[in-house]
């Protein structure tokens, strides 16, 4: 990038112009494809959210202003779902960060079997989220799962019978599925740290813990923040695991499940779109907090897998 910026002024202007034209032609298809299913639909969602529109009663469609937002924001269900979503997001991302860091350190510093560990850790990443959700659901099922057969766990424990125990299994499934991605992003930050720093600190008598807190963590701050930002936004969308494991039973709905139920099950496009727009605004606010509040340099980051 730097090199081409330097040589640009030397070129004749017709060449610059043809270069720009080529660049735009190369970018246009991807840009159009990306906008077609994001910018236009979110605009359309805003329009739908201002109407009373239920596909079961299409003749009753009318413009009702912000009434749908009023209905959503004054409903207990919406706030319950916001609470669940934020709880799942905060708990799973926190545990993932700690576990992911531990796994990154094992992958980075293990004195043997490094390649094998890396390969095995990629398996949860590659597995379909729905499949992972079934695996965890079957494991915790009170009649057929092996978990209740384990020592220290009561045989008659009904994991999917309560609110918090259901959320706990959902969170475990999320953590299992996405920790590898976190670990790999952290590993990428870890390998850039100059090993000489550790040697010098060792000579000065720093313990392993001191070296981790004083060297590793500060130098990895940018990598950690980018990884946490992407995982936080992904965790906020949690849908697959809940749909498979509880379908929202025991008050385990997330905001995405609520949106889906309104839009696809009840065909209430007006209310469902209001939920969609509110989810979108939540995501914008979370991203804004990370970028402005914590100073994440997103240009250095990358989209999640």
């Amino acid at each position: 990038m730097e090199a081409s910026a330097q040589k640009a002024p030397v070129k004749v202007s017709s060449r610059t112009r043809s270069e720009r034209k080529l660049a735009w032609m190369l970018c246009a298809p991807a840009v159009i494809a990306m906008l077609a299913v994001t910018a236009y639909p979110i605009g359309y969602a805003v329009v739908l959210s201002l109407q009373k529109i239920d596909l079961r009663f299409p003749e009753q469609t009318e413009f009702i202003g912000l009434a749908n937002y009023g209905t959503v924001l004054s409903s207990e269900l919406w706030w319950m779902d916001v609470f669940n979503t934020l709880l799942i997001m905060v708990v799973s991302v926190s545990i993932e960060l700690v576990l992911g860091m531990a796994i990154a350190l094992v992958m980075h510093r293990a004195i043997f079997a490094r390649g094998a560990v890396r390969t095995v850790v990629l398996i949860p990443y590659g597995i379909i989220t729905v499949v992972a959700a079934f695996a965890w659901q079957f494991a915790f099922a009170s009649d057929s799962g092996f978990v209740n057969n384990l020592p220290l766990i009561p045989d008659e424990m009904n994991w999917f019978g309560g609110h918090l125990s259901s959320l706990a299994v959902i969170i475990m499934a999320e953590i299992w599925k996405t920790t590898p991605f976190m670990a790999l992003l952290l590993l990428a930050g870890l390998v850039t740290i100059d090993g000489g720093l550790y040697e010098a600190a060792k000579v000065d008598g720093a313990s392993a813990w001191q070296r981790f807190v004083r060297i590793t963590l500060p130098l990895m701050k940018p990598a950690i923040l980018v990884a946490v930002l992407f995982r936080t936004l992904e965790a906020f969308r949690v849908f697959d695991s809940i749909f498979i494991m509880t379908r929202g039973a025991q008050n385990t709905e997330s905001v995405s499940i609520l949106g889906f139920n309104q839009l696809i099950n009840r065909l209430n496009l007006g209310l469902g779109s209001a939920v969609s727009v509110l989810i979108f605004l939540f995501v914008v606010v979370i991203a804004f907090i990370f970028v402005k509040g914590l100073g994440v340099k997103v240009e250095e980051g990358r989209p999640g897998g």
Partner: protein
Amino acid sequence: MRHGTREYSLWTIAIVLVVLFALIPVLWLISISLKPPSEIIDQRFIPASVSFDNYKSLFEGGIDGSPFLKPLINSIAIALITTVIAITLASFTAYAIARLEFPGKRAILAGALAIAMFPPISTVGPLFDMWRAIGIYDTYLGLIIPYLTFALPLAIYVLVAFFREIPWDLEQAAQVDGATPWQAFRKVILPLAAPGVFTAAILVFIFCWNDFVFSISLTSSDASRTVPAALAFFTGESTFTEPTGSIAAAAVVVTIPIIVFVLVFQRRIVSGLTAGAVKG
């Protein structure tokens, strides 16, 4: 460097823990899928006896009767078609971004990043309505379009990271020899870029293969329903049997190719996932 026995045993424990963490749910699925129906609720981690009945029932009845075969074909076809289109479009864009100077470059990268953060559920309602209006609800195209949108940012970022490491002098040499920018791209850069392109393709394929939100919202039949959505609608062989065994068997069938992928292309996947994660 010498390592003490204590250090060896600590690492062994750490490695065993990581391996168990990653593998237990997979081994559990394999275990259930091999249990005969009468033993599915025996709660044993290792099956007492092994049967392949669950696998047989998945494919029984051929393409019309099997609840799994058509979704499997749909999943493979939709993921492959999306991967080919996404990689083609993303290669053009990534080349322009890594190589050419033009206004709007930063805007494209920032926009791609914003889309990577975009919540897919927010587009489901409008797409549901639009797809029904224009007649592509419950078709391959109806899924390929949203997959393309959400796969492109990933593909563009991975490809830009790889393209920036290509020795561009070769391209200049080709241009000095009279090649146009387009020829330089096609004949010199494309072959050099193949490993990065392949890596991006693997990641895009895994992304499409994994989707559930769009598949369950924008399809209504086996005409285009993919495996994750089909699994959610699985029923037992009769109304009275739980589909646990067949779901586990289907889960194993769709997981094995991914495990093989991961084993064979481990290095590429890691480099792709972390491409651009650290400014290099």
